[in-house]
């Protein structure tokens, strides 16, 4: 059974196609792995019966010659995606026992292609966090441990459950979302591949909203090719999301393995930040050398407004969040805590339902949008956002893609940054620029640090040019030859 869970998505689909095993067998192996992995706390809801039903239906469709692109492949779904008839909470107490009567477009696309759902994955509450510690279900534990130690490490956030489930071979791939780095940073912390596509590639319909102008769905997977297969299925125009792009979805998997010879790769000098561990700098240099060996031309570029991206993000994202989360008023769904009158009911419900970090961000957002501060904070941040996007535009006149580290550190201990919000926010220093500009970004596992913990490199592409990222990601993956797996302790 463990052999089936150690397969890549691509290999599992090949095995299903040549009848080496059935989806029912493959799914049962993963159901067993999920059930045996409780100490990781990756799943907040397991749906083994639904998974096996879906698997048998997939086997029947395959027998009839109607197999879709993901027919019979068991996946994990981040709890931010609404799944019809299956509890979806965004890992917040305010959604309590919310059971959607509709399906998110991204998950509907996966089921259309034959995928199987193993359950719902843990995450930071409303995707607000970088360590998974803000989840109402408690933190996810990274399957990786520092060599010779058994201290619990964070898998990163907010898609920590997705990253852990993939890294620990509990599923063949997982959905995730990325508002400031929530796909790429957990991928880097767990030795997995994660891609946030161009804003508008994946429909946001049915995905619980955090910051609508930044939120994008994407996959976390075991390999670059697996990520390409999943993203192809997840993407596509959807009239129910007005920002969904009405353009054809490229055949992403066909870009993996393509030559990258002659591509120009930008190295943004502003990403060399003070206090970054030397190992990350060394890994970055290795990445540069690997791409050079593959025939790329390396060009130094400047993104002068990089240092302002995080502070701008911490105005824009909380502002949008405070507005989006106004819907949780205890009237139509979710938690209601009665008070003496309507206002008191609102106030009690929201005080009881939201966690500390979510409240903090709602308060910041409310403050920066309030009368007298709107221009000084919110409009200013939107202007800085334009400056950041313009920096990328100028860089992309000279280069085809950018190479940077994904995160400024390897996975840290649970509880380590819990007392200092700004220190926690700095996790997203290399990833958040991409969300502000709406560009695609991908993290690829590229090595381990001196403690044996995985580190990732990030590729940033032009808008709608995920294809080039998959080619470059494939080249980096091949050169890095990252095969380390976490030793099983759970």
């Amino acid at each position, binding site marked *: 059974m463990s052999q089936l869970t150690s397969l890549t998505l691509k290999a599992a689909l090949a095995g299903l196609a040549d009848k080496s095993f059935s989806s029912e067998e493959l799914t049962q192996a993963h159901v067993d792995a999920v059930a045996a992995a409780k100490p990781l706390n990756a799943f907040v809801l397991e749906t083994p019966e639904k998974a096996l039903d879906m698997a048998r239906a997939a086997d029947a469709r395959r027998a009839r010659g109607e197999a879709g692109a993901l027919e019979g492949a068991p996946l994990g779904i981040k709890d931010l995606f609404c799944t019809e008839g299956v509890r979806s909470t965004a890992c917040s107490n305010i959604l309590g026992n919310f059971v959607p*009567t509709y399906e998110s477009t991204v998950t509907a696309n996966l089921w259309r292609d034959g995928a199987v759902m193993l359950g719902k994955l843990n995450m930071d509450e409303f995707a607000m966090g970088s360590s998974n510690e803000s989840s109402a279900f408690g933190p996810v534990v990274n399957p990786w441990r520092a060599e010779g130690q058994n201290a619990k490490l964070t898998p990163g956030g907010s898609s920590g459950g997705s990253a852990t489930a993939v890294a620990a071979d509990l599923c063949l791939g997982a959905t995730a979302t990325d508002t400031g780095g929530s796909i790429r940073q957990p991928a880097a912390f767990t030795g997995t591949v994660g891609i946030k596509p161009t*804003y508008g590639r994946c429909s946001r319909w049915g995905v619980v909203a955090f910051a609508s102008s930044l939120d994008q769905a994407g996959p976390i997977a075991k390999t670059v090719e697996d990520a390409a297969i999943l993203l192809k299925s997840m993407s596509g125009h959807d009239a129910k999301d007005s920002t969904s792009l009405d353009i054809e979805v490229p055949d992403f998997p066909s870009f993996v393995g393509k030559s990258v010879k002659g591509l120009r790769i930008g190295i943004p000098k502003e990403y060399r930040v003070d206090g970054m561990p030397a190992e990350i700098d060394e890994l970055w240099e290795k990445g540069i050398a690997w791409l050079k060996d593959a025939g790329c031309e390396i060009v130094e570029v400047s993104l002068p407004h990089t240092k302002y991206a995080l502070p701008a993000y911490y105005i824009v994202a909380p502002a949008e969040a405070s507005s989006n989360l106004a819907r949780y008023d205890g009237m139509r769904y979710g938690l*209601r805590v*009665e008070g003496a009158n309507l206002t008191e009911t609102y*106030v009690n419900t929201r005080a009881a339902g939201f966690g500390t970090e979510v409240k*903090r961000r709602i308060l*910041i957002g409310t403050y920066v949008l309030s009368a007298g501060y709107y221009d000084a904070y919110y409009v200013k941040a939107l202007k800085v956002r*334009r400056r950041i996007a313009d920096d990328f535009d100028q860089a992309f006149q000279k280069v085809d893609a950018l190479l940077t580290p994904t995160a400024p550190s390897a996975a840290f201990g649970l509880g380590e940054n819990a007392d200092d919000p700004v220190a926690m926010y700095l996790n997203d220093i290399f990833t958040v620029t991409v969300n502000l*500009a709406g560009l695609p970004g991908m993290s690829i596992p590229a090595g381990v640090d001196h403690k044996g913990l995985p580190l990732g490199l990030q590729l940033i592409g032009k808008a709608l040019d995920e294809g080039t990222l998959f080619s470059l990601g494939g080249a980096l993956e091949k050169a890095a030859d990252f095969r380390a797996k976490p030793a099983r302790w759970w």
Partner: protein
Amino acid sequence: MAIDAATVSKVARLARIAEPPERLEPLARELSGILAWIEQLSEVDTDGVEPMTSAVAVAAPMREDVVTEGGDVTKILANAPKTKDGFFVVPKVVE
């Protein structure tokens, strides 16, 4: 700009979140810390820069002006804390 406990209390009221009195001072310190860090944005020259409100420059799409969904009372009420006769039950709004 430093935020005091009175401002936190006002903002919490605007956000419809009850913060207990003992949380106001710690929150004022946390939010002041975050805003002090955000202050560095004032270094950026943004004269004449158009605010960026959307990640992709596309016009809002129009659709046919026809009914697409509806008649789903049961589905819409399925997660309501309180319902009666096909309606949401909410606290009294007008005295």
